[in-house]
């Protein structure tokens, strides 16, 4: 493809059952674009973890996915509470998720580490009381 393709999604912070819809939709888009299954898997997992985090921790947000010839770039933006200590949040097992979320199988503190593992590049910008923007790039 010559021109980059841009997909945008609103991630609803009220509806936990629909959480993940943007990632599942994006997976379908990438499959139609003929991206390799391994790259699709990495994008889908990284984006899903980010999407779930926006729902659990930030009351929802916005996802923008740009597909160019050599990479998929995912930008997740929210106006949630922000992350006090990003380095700590990135550690496997660190989680502030409440009990009801843990009962659903989330809140294992593996989300941000999974995102880092699946993305070739990841940056986290977060300001307390303002929000969080996470940018991930997966080379294809």
């Amino acid at each position, binding site marked *: 493809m010559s021109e980059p393709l841009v997909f945008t999604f609103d991630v609803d912070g009220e509806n936990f059952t629909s959480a993940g*819809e943007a990632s599942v939709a994006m997976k379908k888009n990438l499959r139609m674009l003929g991206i390799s299954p391994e790259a699709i898997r990495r994008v*889908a997992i990284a984006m899903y973890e980010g999407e779930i985090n926006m729902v659990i921790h930030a009351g929802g947000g916005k996802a923008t996915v740009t597909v160019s010839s050599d990479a998929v770039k995912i930008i997740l933006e929210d106006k949630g509470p922000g992350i006090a200590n990003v380095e700590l949040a990135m550690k496997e097992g660190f989680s502030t998720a409440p009990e009801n979320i843990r009962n659903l199988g*989330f809140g*294992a503190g*593996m989300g941000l*580490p999974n995102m880092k593992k699946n993305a070739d590049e990841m940056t986290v910008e977060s300001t307390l009381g303002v929000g969080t923007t996470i940018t991930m790039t997966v080379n294809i």
Partner: protein
Amino acid sequence: MTVSELVKSLDLEILSMTDGTREIKGAYAGDLLSWVMGRASAGNVWATIMTNVNVVAVASLVDMSATVICENSEIGDDVIETAKQKGINLLRTRLPIYEFTAALSRLI
């Protein structure tokens, strides 16, 4: 072994079967969804007792060959419907996770 063959061998209950010819490549057992997403591989059979709708999203994103709900864990019709829509092979057994995966490992 294909998913259809697995269903027959272990007498699994079919909740949603969209591709019985799918080849099984290994398995993963677990209930913590991020853990599953971090560790499971494409083509795995996933054994779990979780039944909320996020299970369908995880099964789809990881590209499991089949998801097997163990211990006859109760599951909502809405979740089964979502599995059908998303093209997920969703099965169920009365066996606990250990017994199911032990039986599975004798087959694959």
